[in-house]
């Protein structure tokens, strides 16, 4: 059984039918990319999975549990973290306070301290800047903080929304290296990206979303060589 299974999902924004009956699945250990143009429904899909918006119909099952029936604040303790679009770190709090909020639902302070050390090992810059107000970090550092904050909950799966948005090419490469390394240490990743080239290069499988529907899916490397994908998303 897939770790995360989305079936016939329909989501509305007021009158607008934003997600039109999509189905897809994420297996444990995979990196799955969800690619598509602006407004295709990628962010909406992630927001529906973690309960930031409600669904009209369909089902979202995570490890056998129906997420549409789970109060949104319980989802993180089930092992699902979400790095939202635009990072949405707490600008007025310090780096360390942000990280600690990532572990908000965890009870054992000793385990949290251990996770904090592993996050600091992965992002030495965050350790250096731990007492700095998060709003004063650079864009790339804020992205690292958002990822570190998600890791603090010790998730089984991380939903990442446009982690490369607005970053310099150097940071983009660094962020994708981190995504690969987080995945290889055992965390499943569902990645939403406009940078289709980088996303497909990192992913095992991918789904192409167009105006609320999945129009293509398959092995990421094969999709990279698909003519329509090349033309529409890779600029070739």
């Amino acid at each position, binding site marked *: 059984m897939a770790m995360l299974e989305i079936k016939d999902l329909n989501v509305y924004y007021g009158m607008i039918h934003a997600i039109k009956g999509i189905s897809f699945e994420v297996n444990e250990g995979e990196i799955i990319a969800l690619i598509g143009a602006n407004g295709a429904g990628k962010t909406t899909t992630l927001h529906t999975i973690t309960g*930031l918006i409600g669904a009209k119909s369909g089902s979202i099952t995570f490890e056998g549990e129906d997420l549409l029936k789970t109060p949104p604040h*319980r*989802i993180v303790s089930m092992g699902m973290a979400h790095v*939202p679009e635009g990072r949405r770190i*707490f*600008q007025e709090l310090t780096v360390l*306070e942000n990280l*600690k909020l990532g572990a*908000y639902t965890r009870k054992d302070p000793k385990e949290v301290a251990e996770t904090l050390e592993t996050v600091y090992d992965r992002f030495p810059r965050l350790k250096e800047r731990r007492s700095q107000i998060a709003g004063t970090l650079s864009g790339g550092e804020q992205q690292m903080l958002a990822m570190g904050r998600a890791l603090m*909950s010790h998730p089984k799966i991380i939903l990442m929304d446009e982690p490369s948005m607005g970053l310099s090419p150097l940071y983009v490469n660094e962020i994708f290296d981190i995504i690969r390394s987080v995945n290889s240490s055992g965390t499943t990743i569902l990645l939403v990206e406009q940078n289709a080239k980088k996303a497909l290069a990192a992913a095992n499988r991918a789904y192409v979303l167009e105006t609320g529907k999945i129009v293509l899916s398959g092995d990421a490397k094969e999709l990279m060589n698909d003519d329509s994908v090349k033309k529409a998303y890779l600029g070739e």
Partner: protein
Amino acid sequence: MEFLEQLINGLNLGSIYALIALGYTMVYGIAKMLNFAHGDIIMVGAYTLSVAVSTFNVNPGLSIIISMIVCAALGILTEKIAYKPLRKASPLTVLITAIGVSYFLESLALLIFGSKQRKVASVITMKPLSIGSFELTGESIVTLGVTIIIMVALTLFINKTKTGKAMLAVSEDKGAAQLMGVNVDFTISVTFAIGSALAAVAGTLFTSSYGFVGPYTGAMPGIKAFVAAVLGGIGSIPGAMLGGIILGIIESFSKAYISTQLADAIVFGVLIVVLLVRPTGLLGKKRMEKV
């Protein structure tokens, strides 16, 4: 000597404004709404206290606690019934609802207790303190002491506890806080409960100094405390404390040295001037926007 007396008066009054302003500012910070019914919670607190003490002969200390619990419950209840269904509505709708809640509470008090003001015996039994020819009333000592303790406790609560941190997170970004596993509804309830309990304390201190409570007792201190919260920077907790104290002192000095009739005009005039110079209030922050 008169100067010192007026300063103490101002601090006294300012402390009460500050306690009320904290409720305004916390609710604004978390729920992004101006709860204009907040002033009337003071009135409910004062009536509760008066009924407990004089009708049921409950001892004053316990009566204050009962009054805080009643107000906290009322705060949670108004949020659940009146404001929660409007969370996605326009700010104007919420504002009008809050004014409606305010009228509702005032009319309810009018219905139950009538329009005649009810005498409230001071629950503060502390003896005045004389320093030379200068006398500090028991009410002043208790008001200042209680306010200082509450401010320190609240600051510690917000910065040191998990719930406090969750409140800060919710005030900045509800959605992101929810993604961290923060129960946003619970956090909003806690905020209303704390704000309303502080209003109950303010109501106790206020009526202990003035001796009466009526259906509209909360209106004026409520508006003044709102001014204090805006003056200090709405959403900022230290701002509400500072704004309250400054407002109390200005009012007290205006009454003593300029004119009793003009005191309120001066208070509101100060607000206008401050907002012209610093639209975010004294300690209000301009939010950093980063794309």
